[in-house]
């Protein structure tokens, strides 16, 4: 599969302040997004995620490096014909109604009037905003703006969608709905690049990820390759045993309401704990093997950097 987006050694610095001080925000970003995948661009706040996206969209100009969007420069309008974009914080024309707003963006792609009407109805249904079609955007909540923003990003039926923090400001139900929409986009053959600092989102839906910290991509690849399947330790919640009895088996994290949470670091010790519980006629309430998570990897990288 070919790549839809390719960045090579992209550098960007800004001059900020009254007495201009140069701040390097991107220090050689390189990654590529393959056709048909959901690519997660992960990083803490201020890592350079949005700056990278802005370079890709031609909103800011890189100092060095190359960016190829559908094989073209991002400054070439043709490269954006099949691109959809949802910005980090949904800022839109608040004097327009949802219908006028989507119609305006559809017109920018030269979509015919009949086609526009059909697409707008379909998209409003997709993002569950049919009820707010005639409401001006200034009356929208943040979650509603996020949904209408997503509809705007899909108005040209793009084959590549860039979503900057798409799940921010949404309630748990809303997050699930948007996650499902993103997955349905992939299922319909579209490519998705989305940025987030929320690891669960990335872990749940991404095929590949790149972790950016301090303007550098520290790690990238398939999620399964980055995160080890090896069991680090097992958490066992038992009852009917005292802390003293459990002392030799692992680390007793807490004892509450007669239940002890034990962290056990080897398979043999897990078996030994189970034997002990059976012998003393105690109870086992939970047994959770903990593997290396994206969070561990992420925290490790941020700490090291």
């Amino acid at each position: 599969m070919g790549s839809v987006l390719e960045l090579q050694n992209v550098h960007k610095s800004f001059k900020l302040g009254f007495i201009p001080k140069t701040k390097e925000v991107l220090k050689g970003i390189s990654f590529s997004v393959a056709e048909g995948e959901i690519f997660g661009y992960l990083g803490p706040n201020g890592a350079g995620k949005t700056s990278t996206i802005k370079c890709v969209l031609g909103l800011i100009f890189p100092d060095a490096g190359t960016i190829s969007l559908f094989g073209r420069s991002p400054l070439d309008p043709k490269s954006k014909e099949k691109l959809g974009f949802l910005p980090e914080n949904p800022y839109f024309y608040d004097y327009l109604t949802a219908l006028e707003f989507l119609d305006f963006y559809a017109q920018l792609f030269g979509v015919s009037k009949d086609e526009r009407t059909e697409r707008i109805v379909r998209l409003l249904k997709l993002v569950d905003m049919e009820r707010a079609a005639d409401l001006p955007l200034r009356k929208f909540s943040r979650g509603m703006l996020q949904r209408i923003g997503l509809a705007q990003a899909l108005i040209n039926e793009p084959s590549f969608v860039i979503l900057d923090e798409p799940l921010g400001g949404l309630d748990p139900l809303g997050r699930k709905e948007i996650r499902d929409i993103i997955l349905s986009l992939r299922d319909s053959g579209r490519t998705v690049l989305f940025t987030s600092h929320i690891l669960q989102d990335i872990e749940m839906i991404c095929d590949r990820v790149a972790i950016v910290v301090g303007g550098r991509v520290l790690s990238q690849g398939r999620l399964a390759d980055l995160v080890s399947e090896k069991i680090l330790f097992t958490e066992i919640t038992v009852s009917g045993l005292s802390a003293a009895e459990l002392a030799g088996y692992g680390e007793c994290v807490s004892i509450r309401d007669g239940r002890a949470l034990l962290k056990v670091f080897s398979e043999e010790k897990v078996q030994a704990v189970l034997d002990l519980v059976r012998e003393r006629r105690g109870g086992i309430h939970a047994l959770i093997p903990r593997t290396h998570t994206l969070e561990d990897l992420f925290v490790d990288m941020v700490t090291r950097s």
Partner: protein
Amino acid sequence: MIISVIARNTFKEAVRDRVLYLLLFFSALSIVLARVLAILTVGDRVKVVKDVGLASISFFGALMAILIGTGLVYKEIEKRTIFTLISKPIRRVEFLLGKFFGLVLTLAVMLGAMSLIFLAVVFLHTFQVEFGLILAVVFIFLELVLLTAVAVLFSCFSTPILSSLFALSFYLIGHFSWSLETLIKRTPAGATRTIIQIIYMLLPDLENFNIKTEVVQNLPLPSGIWLGAFGYGVVYTAFILLLAVLVFRRRDFI
């Protein structure tokens, strides 16, 4: 095509701005009050109505161009609405021209509305629609188009308050720069005269668009004024827009 889509949206934005209606209300009030002023005047009352009416259209039109024009591009950057716009297949120059023509369209409609009120007030006195007055409004419109381009230029790199001050300075300088012409005539030939001549060439001369006196006093219009004012307006506006495009095309939207 894209320019017209953005222009229509800009027009929608401007006509949904309450400031515009406030200015329209005060301009209408000022035009109507000219009638009261005329009653208090000794002499030709119609001339006072015409004079104050045209001055009101010019002044409030300039305020509209400056107040709305200076926030036009800045607001898009500040509110980050430009992010979604530039991510679409449009060129920056198309965005800028769309904004400019949108405001020009708004001014045309507002000037039309002010003119209707003005012509109605004059009609109450003279019982005729004078072509000269319409011509004077067309010249005011040409001046406002230029002023809009200036407002858009400043809006590309400065805050609305600073841009308003710059644009207002441009407007004031433009109406007083003609006095340099007198100074040039009185200065003996030499380096000083050349410097003043260069300054005069660079500074705008908005009096080129002022035919109010001729129209109100029923004086003959100078020959070639049509072509002169139109040519000056188009060339100067194009020059200012070119500067705006140059500033805007390499700007980072942080």
